[in-house]
């Protein structure tokens, strides 16, 4: 766990938030501290887990939740923030973060297990086998439950702080390692006229 996560137990999701899934640029990697190097090493093992999603074996990486709970939470995660451009592997990262929290907090494990069981009993069949519309309808009925709030709040950070997701959704993230955007397109928009120099002087 990185030190800031330990300082801020109310934000436990930060423990996995840096460099996860990540192809950290070599120069950036070299600039970071020993602590971060350790977490990047952990991220490498995370990549291995994600890679196996393609072969449907990713649930083997769960430590606390079982495969069915993992598969159901994967569907829930996709329905909460559905992006066609994202792969299941991006949402697997969210489930892995939930699994990590379940492993450290028994209350969270129970909340997630009971939540999955509740979803399974809410429709005509197990939640994961229902149509998208049916899944969304069930989640709408449950959106004020602590279970939904938990998955939503963890996913909000876990999904959108994932560098692989940034790339797919068009966010370029840190720029310090390239000297800022000054020489990397900060003013390259060309579908509108450039403002006059009186409003927007040329760079130094």
């Amino acid at each position, binding site marked *: 766990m990185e030190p800031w996560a330990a300082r801020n137990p109310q934000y436990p999701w930060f423990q996995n938030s840096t460099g996860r899934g990540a192809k950290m640029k070599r120069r950036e990697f070299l600039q970071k501290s020993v602590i971060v190097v350790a977490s990047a090493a952990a991220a490498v093992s995370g990549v291995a887990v994600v890679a196996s999603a393609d072969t449907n074996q990713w649930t083997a990486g769960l430590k606390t939740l079982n495969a069915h709970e993992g598969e159901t939470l994967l569907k829930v995660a996709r329905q909460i923030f559905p992006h066609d451009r994202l792969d299941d592997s991006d949402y697997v990262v969210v489930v892995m973060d939930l699994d990590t929290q379940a492993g450290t907090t028994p209350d969270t494990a129970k909340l997630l297990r009971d939540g999955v069981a509740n979803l399974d009993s809410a429709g005509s069949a197990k939640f994961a086998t229902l149509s998208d519309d049916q899944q969304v309808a069930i989640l709408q009925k449950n959106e004020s439950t602590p279970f939904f709030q938990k998955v939503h709040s963890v996913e909000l950070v876990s999904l959108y702080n994932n560098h692989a997701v940034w790339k797919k959704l068009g966010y370029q993230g840190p720029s310090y390692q390239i000297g*800022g955007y*000054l020489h990397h397109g900060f*003013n390259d928009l060309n579908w509108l006229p450039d403002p006059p120099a009186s*409003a*927007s002087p040329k760079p130094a």
Partner: protein
Amino acid sequence: MARFDSNDDSVVVIIGSGAGGGTLANELCQKGFKVVLLEAGKHQSSATFRNDEWFAFNQLAWLDKRTTSGNWQIAKDFPNLPAWTCKTVGGTTVHWAGASLRFQEHEFKAKTTYSDVTGANLLDWPLTLAELEPYYAKAEFKMGVTRTNDIPGLPGNNNFKVLYNGATRVGYKTVHTGRMAINSRPRDDRSSCWQLGFCFQGCKSGAKWSTLYTEIPKADATGKLDLRAECQALQIQHDSRGKATGVLYADQNGKHVVQKAAIVCVACNSIESARLLLNSSSTSFPQGLANSSGQVGKNYMRHTTGSVYATFKKPVYMNRGTVMAGIVADEAELNLKRGFAGGFEFETISLGLPFAAAFLKPGAWGRDYTRVLDQYANMAGMWIVGEDMPQETNAVTLNPTEKDQWGLPIPNVHYDDHPNDLAMRNYAYKRGADIYNAVGAVQTIAVPPYPSTHNLGTCRMSESPRDGVCNKWGQTHDLKNLFISDGSQFTTSGGENPTLTIVTLAIRQADYISRERTKKNL
């Protein structure tokens, strides 16, 4: 770094190292005063900042628990995070975006100008723009504000190009890259702007003015500064003659220390400044220190804010470059015909993907929301910042039941939107959407206020001791050697970002303290 004895009662103790406290510390050190600068947060630097929104939020933000009440949407969206301010050396000048606008003459006379606005506790400032102008000039020079002192404006980024074209097409005239305390040329031993796009996360290039790497090291160089980081002020102490005598604080090991003082200056940002005075109540001051008026914590203002984002058919990449890259100033003028008192600016704003997901529609989920986020690269954004009405019932109070890690009551922040605030926000949402529609927006999104960064008014200055907490110098009406040195002394909020005015008041306050000390009045 100097180290002064805790029993040295000749020092000035300043609580808080941000725009007010950090500036005041340097100004007093330059005049030869010995200063103990207490800061609750840790000492970071450009080297320890990261271009990472969530990391920086945890590194820099004030995250101690607070509670909220009132009809503002913050109480629903962020019930325990009413404010987005900093707990770190340099305070919120580490996080601020750099917009440095002078208040307008009429804004110092809000009661006279707007007359009686029902439900608003308006008051004229006990000073005028003319009195402040020489100090505004000093502040602009100190901070290196663009478009002043022959400093060129910053180059506009993509987000500004969208704002500029839209705003001029709907007829706005005053649209440019703003007056920013961000170097457009190397100055004051700091580099020019790299267009990093992470102004809110601590400027890694050092181009943005922050007391962290300007005022504080300059104060240190005098040999008169004793900066004590990770020291949380708990109580201001006083004697039987109504004179402040020192400050009780918890050091980084949790040990309680009393630092004696000749003069105490409070600059903890409006929520903590009020809380500290309220938590310093005694048998002589049962309502809290410097609170004979009953106005400590009252009239809390946070600016009428909101944002408008829009998606376009083609890429914008708003994340590239300065966050507040430009301004539309036309709506800041005095114009009571719009159906509300006060004015506002449009200023570009951008959020990275992690914070866009968290703030564009707090709590949202599902396909309608992700369709917007799918357009992240094609998105432009602007922020609305306008004058809000002081209301006596909008207040920082002590939570009756919840205590912090030192056993002191945590603050509750109550805010009800005034009908004038709502009218201004709705008008601004509409005009902001007009700007983006004029350049072909696919969709415009009215975004509710973020947790407050402009926290103002909880120890306001007033001519009469009955109406406020301090006089025109920030000196409290009740205790001669106790000063308010941050935005909490604002009588009204004005329509402009407050940092330049906070710095201006701090420079002026230092002159006053020095004069009064020479005359032996302090």
